[in-house]
């Protein structure tokens, strides 16, 4: 673990692989860390993220749980209170509703209502998002919705670096941290520095600078925003793509800094439009940068519909790069989005 001379070398891996090595790393570094969730062990993880970890760390630290989302999330809270550093995996966000009482009424409140006595250093990971024809009960994107809850942090890694580094940072955070991994990202490949380590989680990141419009995206929508920016660039519009990274607490300053450069903003959000995190971002921009805006803030969100199975309907329901392009063209062209 010491800084090696080969520190600048990198390895080709996937988002999945980056999370797996982050897990392995955490388990090696801190004996208080353990992973618990449905099928994280013998099955190898529903999305193969934890494959191999059971053999390496044994069933005490890689704990297959019964189908009991409420109990094992609550047990994660209790274990955190008891001095452990649990990583609880909820297989997908769709099942997290069964544990929401524990998350909102306990994890998020214990420190405050105990007058500062009881920090809950718990990490909850879950897969989120649509795009794989999994239909109405398996396609939710609720990370923006979770960001409503004070007392928790909400992280949405969109890159390999963040997939690798956010877990470490989350484990060092004394608060309950929810990490949403977009299911569509697991197979995404890229280079990852061999010495990739923890990343700060307080700031949004400009993934592509531009002067004409700010495009805010996160997790599964970042790639769409970048594709849209590429497309627009060929038409002479320079979009600045900002990866929000953390949905709670939002990096308001980072958002405003970008808007103050571009004077236009679009948010690309896989959540249902009404009451989405994109609404919050829009509201904050209006509140703080109203007089800087050359056009109303626009949103590209999911259609407000339980996700249909059929591919063409799912595509129609989700934000797409093409919709982002059209929206920005309208915005920069001067019309309302």
């Amino acid at each position, binding site marked *: 673990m010491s800084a090696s001379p080969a520190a600048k070398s990198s390895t080709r891996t996937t988002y999945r692989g980056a999370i797996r090595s982050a897990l392995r790393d955490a388990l090696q570094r801190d004996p208080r860390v353990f992973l618990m969730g*449905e*099928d994280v*062990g*013998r*099955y*190898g993880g*529903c999305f*193969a993220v934890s494959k191999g970890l059971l053999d390496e760390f044994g069933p005490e630290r890689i704990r*297959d*749980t*019964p*189908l*009991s*989302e*409420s*109990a094992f999330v609550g047990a994660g809270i209790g274990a955190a209170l008891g001095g452990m550093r649990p990583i609880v995996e909820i297989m997908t966000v*769709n*099942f997290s509703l*069964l544990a929401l009482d524990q998350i909102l009424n306990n994890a998020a409140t214990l420190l405050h209502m105990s007058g500062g006595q009881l920090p809950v250093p718990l990490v909850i990971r879950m897969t989120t998002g649509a795009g*794989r*024809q*999994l*239909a*109405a*009960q*398996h396609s939710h994107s609720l990370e923006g919705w979770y960001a409503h809850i004070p007392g928790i942090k909400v992280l949405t890694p969109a890159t390999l670096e963040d997939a690798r580094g956010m877990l470490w940072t989350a484990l060092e955070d004394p608060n309950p941290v929810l990490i949403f991994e977009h299911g569509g990202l697991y197979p995404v490949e890229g280079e990852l520095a061999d010495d990739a380590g923890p990343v700060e989680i307080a700031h949004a990141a400009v993934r592509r600078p531009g002067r004409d419009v700010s495009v805010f995206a996160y997790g599964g929508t970042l790639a769409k925003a970048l594709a849209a920016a590429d497309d627009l660039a060929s038409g002479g519009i320079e979009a600045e793509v900002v990866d929000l990274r953390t949905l709670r607490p939002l990096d308001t300053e980072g958002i405003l800094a970008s808007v103050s450069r571009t004077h236009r903003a679009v948010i690309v959000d896989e959540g249902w439009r009404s009451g989405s995190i994109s609404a919050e971002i829009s509201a904050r921009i209006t509140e703080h940068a109203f007089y800087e805006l050359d056009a109303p803030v626009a949103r590209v969100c999911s*259609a*407000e*519909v*339980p996700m*249909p*199975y*059929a*591919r*063409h*309907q799912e595509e*129609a*329901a989700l934000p797409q790069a093409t919709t982002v392009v059209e929206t920005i063209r309208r915005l920069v062209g001067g019309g309302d989005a």
Partner: protein
Amino acid sequence: MNAAAAPLPADVGADAARALLREMLRIRRLEEKCAELYSGGQIRGFLHLYIGQEAVAVGAMIALGPDDAVVATYREHGHALARGISAVSLLAEMFGKLEGCCRGRGGSMHVFDAARRFYGGNAIVGGGLPIAVGLALADRMQGRRRVTACFFGEGAVAEGSFHESLNLAALWHLPVLFCCENNLYAMGTALALSEAETDLCLKAASYEIPAWPVDGMDVVAVADACRRAVTAVRAGGGPCFLELRTYRFRAHSMYDPELYRTKEEVEAWKRRDPIPAYAARLREAGLLDDAGLAALEDEIARELAGAIERAEAGTLEPVSELLRFVYAEAPAP
């Protein structure tokens, strides 16, 4: 009479006895096609095959009348077919076509058919149980002597909704038949790794629900047990619980590398395959011969080929209708 050794379910004629074989075979062959179609990319999303468990759905469905209701899980092709939903409607659904039973919106995991009182197709483990309780409550309150059969895997037993639902059904003496298909695994988690008490009938008993285990690889045993249970439930005695001991021969879904069980274990269970076992019994009883079986296979192959063709020829729901039925278009009946 030893039910497990009986050639036929009690009180069932020769044609009905053969029909049990046909239904099991239809499910088996349809799902084998589904696996192919999935590899070919025509079916997508999650696909959970029922292969190995056919005796359960087929045996249970003959115990139900058309007014009874069925609630199932994401592993419900077998239940849907056995309940009378056509292969073409099911396949078109999996192809994402408008002609599917749910306009292509549900796919493999969400089969619904209101006319047949087939209420899903629920992809949240344990999510269907409270709904079954409510359907039964509606029947009870409206004085209808109907039964709601609720199918779920043994993995669901650990969920809070199992506990709450069984208690509510028992407390209010509701006409629910709880059919727990114990195929020993929830994805990769063996029953002993998910339940402190692996005797599931004992669990049911803790709600004062009569419960008994059934050989789920034996369609006759399933049919007899379900008919007995349905009779008790319909008579107003409150819910019953059946543990149907079975096994899935295939992976949990098309993504599953099956790291958690041995080939030997799977092979051992395949030797108890409910279809050849029942076919042999029909032969012994003089109700089936080689020609009869060949004819049956042929009939099913033709049905499925036709169904696939028609499903493929189906249309796509217009994108303009994406938002239809988020809210109802007319007052509820």
